[in-house]
């Protein structure tokens, strides 16, 4: 029996076991929405802006291990989705984004709500398709899901002209398919793994550097096995938080621009570095030449060959699925009865403990002003470290990454690569829908939250009881910090004047709003908010405006040249200019 293209789309999504489609209707997808109306196998979540649909689908994926699905109309619906797609692309998140397109005869005619979606998204998708023939629709959607989740994951766009959704075809959904030009490597090369094992066995100052690939590759168990059975220090990047338990002694915290003192020093001074699904990003290693100025051997495990030797030359590249490679590595390690250089490793740990003893995340507590770090610590305590935390982008994001110790993967949901303000709230929606029993909190700031605040309405409609923790410092805090440090305190356009009354705003959307203005009220307010399990609670926390994120590695500097918090100003190897005249280093 022949069915319409719109019905084919719905059947494909059902075949894929999709639970939620995040979207927004419009002229070009009206037939698909009609087909959705007639089914009840998956739920559609009506967002208030297409960007939020993609972020929600993205976080749905990040917090589970399923492919996220978004559906948008042509033209402005499609362009609104682009920021979400680019966000997912930079962090390698598997998504299928279905966009409507004008009917095929109208393509190229500058038709109403026409935009070249395939052209616009080409640089920020893993792949994209324009479906010109209804007979190819099902197999194209199958390919989209296959591409999105295999190899290095990423978003795939399927652009579907309106007439294709109306034309008829038989529905045949292939069980599997092979793409001759796309065969991702899964198993690592055993010879390379052997070399890596031998190199690691000879290490005196080893370090495991764990990135987002370990989360996406579901390799947390293997990472833990490697780190714990060998007794190695490790560091989780911003994208890798939770891949190894953040509260464990062997974890040195996050490396990079706002990483811990001990993690950055260990990154700089290790002699064998094992990168697991990490890509030596500029925010992590800063300047490659400085990073390599301390001689070290590098083992790099990644599913994407193009991530290897992109910024940093490595000694032993291993292309493969991180989970499988780590398993093979451990197997070889155990078979070969390798042992580490015990005395050297003990000395290395002693050095690390000395670095850690500086307690670089210590901050001055205040009786009158709420310190943002204090809020994150209390959030960690009140939620028992078990919540899924989404974040926006800026200072609050860094504080959340520093002070909330993630002990499991897929609990820390943030836009790491693209740095998309406005990500947090729609991400919280997606994470909550994927994990209905979990506690979900969105850590945000007064600037970021306003970039997708309309989604409070979506949360109301679908009873999504996330908790919004708004660290309100009345500034674009991270930019203000740079202006203070590098631009002579000229706070150009970073003061958020005319902020709304967030409490009233939350109430206007039908939620609970609470304002917290005194340090003593932070914990009680958090407890009260999280006790309201059925309600979205918006906590507007008025924080110290002058607080900066430390440690900090300025652009152009090495990892051991951090600007450190006040109590560490006399620490060697990381000069801290306390006159705050940093010069223009950016």
């Amino acid at each position: 029996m022949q069915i319409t293209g719109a019905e084919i789309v719905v059947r494909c999504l059902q075949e894929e076991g999709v639970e939620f489609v995040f979207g927004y209707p419009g002229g070009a997808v009206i037939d698909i929405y009609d087909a959705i109306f007639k089914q009840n196998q998956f739920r559609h979540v009506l967002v208030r802006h297409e960007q939020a649909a993609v972020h929600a689908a993205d976080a749905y994926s990040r917090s589970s291990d399923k492919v996220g699905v978004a559906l948008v109309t042509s033209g402005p619906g499609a362009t609104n989705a682009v920021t979400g797609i680019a966000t997912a692309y930079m962090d390698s998140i598997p998504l299928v984004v279905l966009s409507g397109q004008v009917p095929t005869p109208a393509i190229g005619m500058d038709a109403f709500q026409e935009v070249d979606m395939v052209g616009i998204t080409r640089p920020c998708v893993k792949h994209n398709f324009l479906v010109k023939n209804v007979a190819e629709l099902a197999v194209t959607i199958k390919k989209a899901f296959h591409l999105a989740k295999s190899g290095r994951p990423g978003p795939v766009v399927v652009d579907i002209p309106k007439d294709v959704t109306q034309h008829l075809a038989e529905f045949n959904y292939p069980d599997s398919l092979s793409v001759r030009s796309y065969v991702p490597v899964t198993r690592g090369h055993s010879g390379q793994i052997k070399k890596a094992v031998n190199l690691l066995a000879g290490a005196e100052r080893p370090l495991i550097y764990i990135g987002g690939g370990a989360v996406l590759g579901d390799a947390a168990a293997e990472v833990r096995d490697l780190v714990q059975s060998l007794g190695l220090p490790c560091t989780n990047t911003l994208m890798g938080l939770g891949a190894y338990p953040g509260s464990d002694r062997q974890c040195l915290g996050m490396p990079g621009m706002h990483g811990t003192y001990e993690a950055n020093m260990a990154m700089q001074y290790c002699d064998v570095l094992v990168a697991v699904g990490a890509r030596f990003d500029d925010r992590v290693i800063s300047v490659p030449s400085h990073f390599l100025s301390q001689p070290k051997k590098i083992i790099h495990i990644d599913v994407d060959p193009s991530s290897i030797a992109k910024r940093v030359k490595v000694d032993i590249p291993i292309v493969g699925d991180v989970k499988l490679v780590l398993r093979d590595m451990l197997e070889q390690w155990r078979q070969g009865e390798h042992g580490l250089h015990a005395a050297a490793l003990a000395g290395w740990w002693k050095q690390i403990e000395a670095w850690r003893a500086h307690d670089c995340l210590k901050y001055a507590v205040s009786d009158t002003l709420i310190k943002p770090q204090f809020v994150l610590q209390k959030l960690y305590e009140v939620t028992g470290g078990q919540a899924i935390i989404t974040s926006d982008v800026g200072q609050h994001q860094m504080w959340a990454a520093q002070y909330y110790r993630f002990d499991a993967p897929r609990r820390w949901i943030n836009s790491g690569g693209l740095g998309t303000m406005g990500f947090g709230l729609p991400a919280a929606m997606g994470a909550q829908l994927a994990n209905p029993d979990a506690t979900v909190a969105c850590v945000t700031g007064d600037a970021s939250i306003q970039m997708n605040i309309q989604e409070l309405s979506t949360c109301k409609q679908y009873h999504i009881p996330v908790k919004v923790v708004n660290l309100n410092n009345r500034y674009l805090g991270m930019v203000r910090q740079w202006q203070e440090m590098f631009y002579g305190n000229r706070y150009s356009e970073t003061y958020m004047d005319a902020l709304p009354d967030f409490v009233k705003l939350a109430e206007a959307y039908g939620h609970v709003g609470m304002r917290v203005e005194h340090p003593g009220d932070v914990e009680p307010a958090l407890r009260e908010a999280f006790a309201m399990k059925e309600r979205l609670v918006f906590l507007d926390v008025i924080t110290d405006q002058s607080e900066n994120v430390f440690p900090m590695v300025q652009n152009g500097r090495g990892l051991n040249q951090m600007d450190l918090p006040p109590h560490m100003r006399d620490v060697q190897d990381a000069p801290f200019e306390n006159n705050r005249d940093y010069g223009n280093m950016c």
Partner: protein
Amino acid sequence: MRHILSILLENEAGALSRVVGLFSARAYNIDSLTVATTEDPTLSRMTIVTHGSEDVIEQITKQLNKLIEVVKVIDLNESEHIEREMMLIKVRSTGKEREEMKRMADIFRGRIIDVTDKTYTIELTGTSEKLNAFIEAVDRTAILETVRTGASGIGRGERILKI
């Protein structure tokens, strides 16, 4: 250093723009690019002449391989290869220049494929250097128009690029 890359890719709409977009997005150089369908109509063969450090060429190769529609990429510089480029060049040829131009075309194994009483159009095939040499050899003011295809390359001997 100059490299000549051979790429086998799916003959699909948009595949070319993915390759070109990759080069511009990542600030790689394209000195020339040729593409056409192969004997298998589902595949296209592309030759890209580029230049860059060894690190950059390695990244270009990896990034090309990452494109879903790219089936295979080889760097022809890695072993013996042959490359050819074709040029159509229209030159002024009047009076005593006419004989001189004919002789020059012969020396370069060119063929005159169109003649008017004032011009010759010469077809010239060879390496890109040879075509450059011809342009250098003739009086620059006599050149009216040039069209070059960009280089196509193929491995020597048994070396083949096929799926």
